[in-house]
């Protein structure tokens, strides 16, 4: 693939970045001068098996080296510890400059090339306990390129923060990819927006055409777009998930029908406000679902007709009960009360169990994009991304008092005094 071969560099780069920052920002107070910590909490919710009551997590060199019950005290104390949370559709604003305008089907470009690591939003997201996000180009193309997963803190370079490059191909169905486009008419000068597709039908047509072209190229061995054929081919083989933005019920149906029509192996429906309206179809199709933020009022503010989309609190529970993999997202919610932890709280309010809600903001999104070998749960050998809570996680009365990212203390539970 033509992408930067960052992966090879990733580990060493991360280590360098960490040691640089360790001395600068949060190295102070660590057990032995390095980023090695012993954390103790009344409850450790590992997202991998049962919770540990009264336990200790030991962190060395940015990794979790032991998780056990007992251990009287640690350098860092909390009521509860959970894994760092993961948001697949975070409120990272890439800006309209990152929308590819020359074509509606972008395959090879990585969102890495459009990310602004200097945005203030990264800090907000990190402080809200989200340590890993999937970054994607804005959903204004039918295919908008490859998404990547990266950490929300650390040195401000992609290579230092990278968790995994090319975790999914981003696509969208419905009206949004065509919005702004229109057929040329009258005496107006030709401009940029006179292009296809201009309708929902056109969006699907372009989606289909891309897959048809890839399949026929595979059969004939004669390709006119090797990048497309390579990437769509991977989605057909299950080597690359297709993350499709599908909000309304109609979009959810469209996405699933396309999945079944072409045999796309792994699909994640993101922003899937109304996936709950088609529970059997979603269950049968085997897609993963990433839900947008809940609203206490039940009315969803996203989309073109605000009141039209509706996400009941029980949606997460209903889909979970059918065995559908569920991830939650805070999207742009960066204020206290609208963050990812609060979304898990709302899902619990809708009847989801605590364990399932925890999974939906940690290990579940991690496994949807296959980064669960390094992040998503508290297990030996995984990255030391940990969130320390003052009370029961996800309750609005609890606060995130500490955050560790790759073993670095980015929010210090001991207060400002130390």
């Amino acid at each position, binding site marked *: 693939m033509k992408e930067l071969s960052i992966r090879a560099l990733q580990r060493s780069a991360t280590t360098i970045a960490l040691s640089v920052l360790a001395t600068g920002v949060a190295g102070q107070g660590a057990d032995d001068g390095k980023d090695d910590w012993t954390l103790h909490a009344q409850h450790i919710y590992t997202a991998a098996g049962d919770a540990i009551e009264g336990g200790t997590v030991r962190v060395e060199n940015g990794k979790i080296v032991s998780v056990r019950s007992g251990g009287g005290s640690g350098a860092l104390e909390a009521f509860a510890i959970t894994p760092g949370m993961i948001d697949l559709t975070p409120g990272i604003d890439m800006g309209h400059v990152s929308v590819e305008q020359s074509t509606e089907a972008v395959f090879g470009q990585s969102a890495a090339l459009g990310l602004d690591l200097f945005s203030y939003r990264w800090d907000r997201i990190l402080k809200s306990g989200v340590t890993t996000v999937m970054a994607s180009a804005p959903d*204004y193309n039918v295919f908008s390129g490859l998404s990547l997963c990266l950490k929300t803190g650390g040195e401000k370079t992609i290579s230092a923060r990278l968790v995994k490059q090319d975790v999914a191909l981003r696509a969208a169905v419905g*009206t949004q990819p065509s919005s702004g486009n229109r057929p040329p008419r009258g005496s*107006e000068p030709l401009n940029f927006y006179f292009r296809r597709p201009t309708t929902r039908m056109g969006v699907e047509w372009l989606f289909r055409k891309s897959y048809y072209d890839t399949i026929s190229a595979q059969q004939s061995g004669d390709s006119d777009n090797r990048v497309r054929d390579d990437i769509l081919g991977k989605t057909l083989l299950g080597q690359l998930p297709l993350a499709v933005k599908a909000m309304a019920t109609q979009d959810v149906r469209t996405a699933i029908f396309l999945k079944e029509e072409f045999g796309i192996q792994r699909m994640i429906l993101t922003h899937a406000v109304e996936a709950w309206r088609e529970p059997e179809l979603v269950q049968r199709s085997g897609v993963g679902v990433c839900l947008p933020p809940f609203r206490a009022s039940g009315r969803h503010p996203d989309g*073109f007709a605000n009141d039209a989309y509706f996400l009941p609190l029980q949606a997460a529970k209903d889909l979970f009960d059918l065995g559908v993999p569920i991830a939650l997202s805070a999207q*742009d919610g960066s204020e*206290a009360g609208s963050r990812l932890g609060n979304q898990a709280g709302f899902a619990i309010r809708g009847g989801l169990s605590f364990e399932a809600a925890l999974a939906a903001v940690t290990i579940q999104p991690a496994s949807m994009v296959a980064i669960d070998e390094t992040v998503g749960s508290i297990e030996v050998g995984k990255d030391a991304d940990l969130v320390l809570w003052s009370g029961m996680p996800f309750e*609005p009365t609890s606060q995130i008092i500490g955050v560790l990212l790759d073993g670095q203390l980015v929010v210090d539970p001991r207060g400002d005094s130390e």
Partner: protein
Amino acid sequence: MNSNMKTQRGIQRSRNTFFFAALIALGATLSAQTDGKIVVEAGRIITLAGEDIENGVIVIDNGRITAIGPAGEIEKPWDAPVVGGPAFTAFPGFIEAHTSSGMDRPNENFEVAPFLDIRDSIDPVSYYFEDCLRWGITTINVQQGAGCVIGARGMVVRPVGMTVEEMMVRPKYGLKISAIPKRGKSRSTQMQSLRYAFDDLRRYLEGLVEKERDERGQARREALFQGRDVEGEKNKGRAMGGTAWKVDGLEIIPRGAIDEKHEPLLDLVEGRYMIFFHCGSPIDVPHAIEIAETNGFLERTVLVLDEDCWKAADAIAKAGVPVILDGGLVDQRRDPLTGEERETFVPEVFEEKGITYAISSENWNDRSLWYQAALATGLGLSRDKALAAVTRTPAEILGLSDDVGTLEVGKFGNVCLFTGDPLSVTTWVDKVVIEGRPVYDRADDVRNRHLLEGVTPQGTAPPVADEGDEHDGDHEEEHQDEDEDHHEDKDEEHGEEHQDEEKEG
């Protein structure tokens, strides 16, 4: 965008009609109940006036609490129906200190409109009041006019009843004054209009007195000519009261002769109204305080504040006025040089400065008071203080302490029964009793099932086709309209987060 908003309103409207049926059902349960006795039992009573009571009983008679205490110590009237049980937590009900929800459009296009009354605008079948019961709010102060200079007379209501009269707790309650520049105005013209309003009052009264001195009985004749009521009490004159400026000789003017625009302002200066003074930024605060001081109503002033007004905390503390937080709990500011973000938890600042404060739900359904109090606890207020800021303190600020805010003998029999701790996500409001009348039962709340499970109750589904098609069409129309601005469609969701900057109420 416009057509879009219209559609939304259309949808809202039609839904209103469809849920009307459900509300009638709720209303029916209300009117079927008499104002007689009722006994509320709860495994725990959070009185907010001293210790919680385990296994407690509340006896309500004729709308007010007549007895409250542990089950063993309270004699239950044999003829009273009993609600609740050991599984529930009883709570006084939240008090919405200030909102412009539950009414039609706010902000009349007059600068000084004290003659308007919110009573004419409150919509008893509004979703908002339905949600209030669902979230456990039992008393609501409706005020509007952040987009005016002097808004209108507000009103305190209970979220139950099919008519405004049924909902009324305190009519003509308070006046709204806004220091936030009206749209299209500068801060200085806003202040100028505000000062002018009181200068105008003074000149008007002086003019009346002067004319009356020239020719006795003229004020009365003119008032009669204009169809005002100048009989009885209204025919009498009174010397000007209040602590600020005075107009000599006002006693010769029958009070009924003072016109609608000036009467409320005179009431204000003479000390008969509360003032909700809306400040949108810290620089509004000193101006508001100065105007209140000059015109003698500082004692009855409540500042309604946006989150960044914490910066004026010293001025507020010095003036000794209570405040209602109408903005977010946390003020997020970025340092323009370093880009570093600072978060200020606003109630904590008020707490440190000794300012009396209430927390409102920011006119936002997603931030109802239980959630605000829970978040405030999470952000560092003690649980008691967070609960007080949405119950007892707003009652004090609004002057309703004798009736609401805590569960004590003599107060209104307003009780919410929660299924658990009022501040937990897993807890729901199960029943609400307002002034002794059971007005809400979660088991009968069809729309709550809609919000929770997405079940559309029978007979309430809009007959229109799936909305999906609708916005497509809508969207295309939009395109035809604004040919020039097409790029906006692609950009619009990328703007900086745009929280409701405009204050409505």
